[in-house]
């Protein structure tokens, strides 16, 4: 298997960054990590995961869709779409890597979202296998193996070297482009690391969380559950869970009048918000209970119902650590599965 020594990782980053934009997870002053555009001297984060997910690269929080220019009483529509430049996102975890399968189902099925597709076409996802999962991790619940991540290229570290395997054509092209820096390596130690990680996975508090009680066919029993009232009563209706979630994909389209024209843009929206999908007649979900229910029903029931059983959650655990009142999908699942 092709590998590079951990010490030489900076050389690799430099080599990639010379050809295209490279994003790597790096530590901030407050200890959290986030993706940043690679610049010389930037260090790869040792954290398990970034605060915001890799979703942002393909589906940014705000994005211009079109411009309107107004000259006197005439309006002109300007298509501002441009071919994106190639870029690489390095160090994506298995959970986030899976989120693209979910996002693709939304944005790349007909009608195709050209803005999203443009970035997907030009972005190469390089994943990194996990070695130190946290208590909030439950990717295995959704059949994700953190030691065998997906993505255009998968990477593993055994502490000394980083190993590379291309999963797609785009991934192969990426590996080829840096093959000069790579060498063949022995995977014995890597296999040990993987085994150790798998063992830890089995010991995690959420190891036994199951999706058995959920899926497209469980609609009415969950929708009508009396548990929602209790579960949602402390929900603040903020959008934290939505905005840190790698799979949430709802957005709102708005016009901004700059004074010289209109910018039509989209921005993330949250089904937890009271003004979500507010229309002329008002809101479709009037209470926080309904809004709360919507979010979890979508992840656990509606999405699998429309997508051959694929769940809308990848178990990254971000919502678990970021919810201001510590309400989260795991608590919901556990509450609902009890008959």
């Amino acid at each position, binding site marked *: 298997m092709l590998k590079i020594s951990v010490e030489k990782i900076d050389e690799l980053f430099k080599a990639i960054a010379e050809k295209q934009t490279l994003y790597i997870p790096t530590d901030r002053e407050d200890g959290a990590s986030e993706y940043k555009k690679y610049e010389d001297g930037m260090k790869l984060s040792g954290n398990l995961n970034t605060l915001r997910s890799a979703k942002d690269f393909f589906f940014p929080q705000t994005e211009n869709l079109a411009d309107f220019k107004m000259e006197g009483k005439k309006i002109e529509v300007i298509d501002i779409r441009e071919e994106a430049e190639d870029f690489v996102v390095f160090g994506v975890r298995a959970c986030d890597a899976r989120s693209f399968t979910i996002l693709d189902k939304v944005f790349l099925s007909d009608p195709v979202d050209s803005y999203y597709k443009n970035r997907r076409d030009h972005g190469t996802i390089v994943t990194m296998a996990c070695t130190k999962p946290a208590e909030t991790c439950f990717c295995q619940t959704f059949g994700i193996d953190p030691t065998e991540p997906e993505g255009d290229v998968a990477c593993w570290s055994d502490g000394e070297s980083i190993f590379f395997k291309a999963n797609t054509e785009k991934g192969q092209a990426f590996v080829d482009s840096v093959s000069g820096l790579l060498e063949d390596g022995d995977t014995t130690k890597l296999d040990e690391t993987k085994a150790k990680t798998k063992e830890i996975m089995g010991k995690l508090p959420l190891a036994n969380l199951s999706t058995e009680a959920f899926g497209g066919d469980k609609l009415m029993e969950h929708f009508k559950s009396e548990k929602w009232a209790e579960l949602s009563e402390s929900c603040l209706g903020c959008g934290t869970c939505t905005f840190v979630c790698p799979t949430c994909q709802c957005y709102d389209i708005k016009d*901004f009048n*700059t*004074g*010289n024209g209109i*910018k039509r843009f989209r921005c993330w929206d949250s089904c937890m918000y009271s003004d979500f999908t507010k229309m002329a007649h008002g809101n479709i979900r009037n209470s926080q209970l309904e809004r709360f229910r919507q979010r979890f029903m979508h992840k656990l029931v509606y999405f699998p119902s429309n997508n051959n059983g694929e769940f809308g959650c990848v178990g990254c655990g971000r919502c678990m650590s970021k919810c201001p009142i510590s309400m989260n999908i795991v608590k919901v699942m556990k509450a609902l599965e009890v008959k």
Partner: protein
Amino acid sequence: MQVNDNKEFQPLIVAFCCNWCSYAGADLSGTNRLNYPTNVKIIRVPCSCRVNPMFILRAFQRGADGVILCGCHPGDCHYTSGNYFTRRRMTLLFSMLDFLGIERDRTRVEWVSAAEGAKFAATMNEFTEAVKKLGPNRRLEDLRCRKQ
């Protein structure tokens, strides 16, 4: 904000003037033909206390380089107390803007009575100069609104 390569920087100044004192003072500087720069554009409000911090931020967002609030002298408010509230609100708001690193000379409160046409013109001249020195507002503008 207008920038022209050949010309010096011409700041855009938004002046909120209360109807009873400062707007009348501005009228008086017109009646007395006292010049002040065209950079200053006046918005009439019934009282300085009508000016919401949102209006001031909005002006900066849209490319104003300075915002000045003019009202009756303390004690002379047509509505008896409006400018006292203005004074507290704007002190705190400007202090906050300063705290966020927005240049403090971009904001100002000035009391101009209906009889002070000369003061109005002098204040506007002074303020425009001060803002001119600061250059364009870059710290509190919305890039989407910047003129091409």
